[in-house]
């Protein structure tokens, strides 16, 4: 896959994201993680090769959702209205009252205080904005969720809280997720599978078979530490090659 009249970004990428699993893409900056994610979303077309989603899912029906690195909220809409936007664009047939009800339920599920529903993005903290962004992605009940370093700009506490929230949402209704991250601990905690990308190709694949839910005992177990070191070593190896 190339950008027009530019260098090749991805080549020979042949991978399968299992349904109902969370897969992390990890690798150095510029290795093509975001490009791969955007290609999966249909935001960028590959110059060759193909992407198949089975069973078929379409972003325009809200079956594929994308969480950007920045919350990408519309500043003139309140938190609630930003979440409603996804339903308004995907399915204008949904009555306004139902749109509102679903958006409120999703924001509540993202643990945003009800008092913040009517606030504008400028009146929310970074963590709250990202909760709204996640709620907007989840409100259409997607079968595929694509996340492009969604927690990168957050402090450790917010990052951890949102990671937990994502896991709880997945446990309640499993969906296929592809997460781009630079954070090894995040990849180890959230994913079933970690793909390591380097210079436009997939290097190692690490299967994370630690038990779920990720309770405190799982997170502090020796196995979790071993998984962390395994991902870290594979990443170092790929970079060194």
């Amino acid at each position, binding site marked *: 896959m190339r950008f027009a009249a530019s260098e090749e970004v991805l080549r020979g990428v042949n991978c399968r994201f299992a349904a109902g699993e969370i897969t992390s893409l990890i690798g150095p900056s510029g290795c093509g993680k975001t490009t791969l994610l*955007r290609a999966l*979303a*249909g*935001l960028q077309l590959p110059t060759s090769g193909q992407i198949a989603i089975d069973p078929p899912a*379409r*972003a*325009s*029906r*809200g079956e*594929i*959702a*994308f969480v*950007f690195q*920045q919350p*990408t909220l*519309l*500043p*003139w809409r309140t938190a609630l209205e930003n979440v409603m*936007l*996804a339903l*308004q*664009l*995907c399915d204008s047939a949904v009555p306004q009252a139902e749109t509102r009800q679903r958006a409120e339920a999703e924001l509540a599920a993202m643990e945003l205080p009800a008092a913040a529903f009517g606030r*504008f993005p*400028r009146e929310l903290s970074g963590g709250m904005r990202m909760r709204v962004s996640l709620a907007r992605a989840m409100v259409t009940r997607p079968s595929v969720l694509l996340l492009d370093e969604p927690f990168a700009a957050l402090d450790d506490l917010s990052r951890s809280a949102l990671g937990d929230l994502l896991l709880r949402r997945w446990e309640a209704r499993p969906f296929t997720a592809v997460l781009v991250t630079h954070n090894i601990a995040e990849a180890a905690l959230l994913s079933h599978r970690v793909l390591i990308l380097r210079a436009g190709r997939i290097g190692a694949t690490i299967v994370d078979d630690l038990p779920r839910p990720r309770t405190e005992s799982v997170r502090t177990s020796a196995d979790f530490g071993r998984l962390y070191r395994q991902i870290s070593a594979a990443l170092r190896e790929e970079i060194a090659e």
Partner: protein
Amino acid sequence: MMTRRSKLLAWIPTGLLAVVAVAVWQAIVTVYALPPILLPSPLAVLDAAWETREELTRGAVVTGGAAVAGFLLSLVVGTGVAALMSQSRMLRLALYPYVILLQTVPIVAIAPLLVIWSGYTFRTVVLVTLIISLFPIINSVAAGLLAIPQDRLDLFRLYGASRLQTLWRLRIPTAVGHLVIGAKTSSGLAVIGAIVAEFFVGNGGANYSGLGTLMTGWQTLGRTAPLMAALCISTLIGVIMFATVDLISRSLLRRWTQHD
């Protein structure tokens, strides 16, 4: 956030400067003993304003009406043209040179032509006002409609938003802040357009009594004091129009103009 008290205090330097300017004006008139036809004193201008209050009031209503009508038309036409330009590169390429013409055409030269075509009428004054206030609206709204952050466009693309949905729910709300900036510039230009047009419309001897017409008449008669009073009132109309746009942007349009 400024309190009411600090907002009032912020006007003190402006008020002081006005007082100083009027004092200097009065001093120049007194020290140099200037004849009133050259430069009347501030008090003489006030006197003249009172004496001609009926004509000035009628003139202000006519000129203000033309300026507001032309300005409102420029908002509608300008936003429409900018919306068209935002929809296709071809349209943008085709229209933009003509939009620049609006800015470069000398309005003083085109006004007599418009008088020939449209007559010594209120409509001609509105047309001139429209032409002079159109460019800032088109330019700023088009910039706003096109300056959409890529991730927001991606979001709309992802959800399969139609061209109309993207225009209505993304491009237009983004452009409101730009529209306000253009409207502030145009509000002042609208008054200039109206006055300039009235210079020509008034020459026809038609029954038209805008401030520009009054100013031409008083200039011919050498009545500088009421002329200056008319000038002050036309400036005041511009200030009121600017302040109204500002007030609307801070109240009705606040949601779209105050993001940070």
